[in-house]
């Protein structure tokens, strides 16, 4: 399941920008909890960029209740969350 995320992370792929690398620096940390395919914590590979972005924004604004993600989503700007969602959703 995490192969898709791993496949994401080639740094020197043509045209990768510093902004993209900085998005990657955030997104790599998602895998700490979302790498194993356990029923407790879902992987992100079946979600589209739009779905991930909506969920992250809803966690941030407490529209979507959860135990942990609202505390984490508040650490990033909406732009950062969108970039992370695009990054994860592409893979």
């Amino acid at each position: 399941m995490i192969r898709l995320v791993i496949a994401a992370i080639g740094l020197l792929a043509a045209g990768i920008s510093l902004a993209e690398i900085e998005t990657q620096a955030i997104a790599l940390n998602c895998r700490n909890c979302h790498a194993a395919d356990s029923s407790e914590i879902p992987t992100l590979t079946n979600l589209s960029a739009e779905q991930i972005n909506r969920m992250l924004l809803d966690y941030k604004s407490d529209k979507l209740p959860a135990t942990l993600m609202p505390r984490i989503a508040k650490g990033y700007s909406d732009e950062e969350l969108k970039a992370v969602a695009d990054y994860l959703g592409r893979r």
Partner: protein
Amino acid sequence: MADWSRRRFLQLAGLSGAASLNGCAGIVSKSNSKAHVVVVGGGFGGAIAAKTLRQLDAGIKVTLIEPKASYITCPGSNWLFAGLTNIKNLSVDYRALSADYGINLVSDSVTRVDAERRRVMVAGGEAIAYDRLVMAPGIDFRWDTLPGYGEASAQIFPHAWQAGPQTLLLQQQIQAMNDGGVVVISVPAEPYRCPPGPYERASMIAWWLKQHKPKSKIIILDAKRSFSKQKLFEAGWAKHFGCGTANSLIEWQSIADNPLVGLDAQTGTLTTDFGDKIRGQVLNIIPPQQAGRIARESGLTDASGWCPVEPQSGRSKFHETIHVIGDAAHYAPIPKSAFAANSEAKACALAVVALLNGRPLPEVHWLNTCYSLITPRHGISVAGVYKLDAERNIGMVKGAGGVSRLGDEQAAILEAGYAGGAYLSLVRDSFG
């Protein structure tokens, strides 16, 4: 002990072991740098640093030097005291890192770092040259801080703060103790590995004692005035272990103003500055800590005993081509945890690849999440998001992070499950 959480945990552990992953398929980029990065230490930080470097740039040769063939994780090791796991489930090896990611494994220990000539010497006699060195040596103990206590004492009074034989020794002592015995847990001042660890440990031991030796007691002697997730732990202890009543299974005492001054090994008695004597049938003395030996001998530590780093890259403040990550390094206010080591390692790997390819350093974020179990069905957590502040120091992002909601019983059950899931994910991400 055949409760839901144990079954789920073992199920998850089995699932973790069965899964395989061809990581090489994921390496999509390769520079012509032909640089060689040596990583010293195969704990959570070193393992994920080596793996991430290979994933980011397959043109970089990566060597991981670690003397042990397998590693027993400290995260999850407290769960052993409640009967939720065992040493086998806590053991990981380096086969996937070698086979799937092309990391060159050297099963040896580093005897010396020659920073001027950029090479490390291993006990087997080989000198290994590097372009950049990533040090993840973890912790060593300060054995000389309590009169009457020393390195040999740990065989009688286990610290169990590096998982393995010490964990089993502590478990055996607790199981052999009479009902009505006292377990003393001595907690050092910060910084030390895993700030909430002693309190999760007390909880897991209490859970087992409550069922098997309910007249017993745990006394935590704490060099600090307060501790991580304190309100959540205390609420959990009140709910499950009678905290606040005369029959409390767990008693926490701050001895910040009345520190330990001696150990009488014959009687298992600790003495404080004011002359208080605390006797335990089991003494779990967690000594103060410092960066691992090779970091100290390589001139990477300051007077604090830890390694100061330039946080954006993890570069040592003393050696431009050496990076330090994980518990040995000073990343405060990020706590010393396996999760944080993983996050530090990824930021460091991004920086190393940028430096080797002549690119600017990216701005990075760090993340820490830490779950603790109070019972197998009562989990709590703390999280923090970190980035560089205006002064280029690591700062916690305001408004983010923090601890679980107090008194939310449904969340506590969910978080107990997430604790197991997050552990398995962290292991998979780091070693799988």
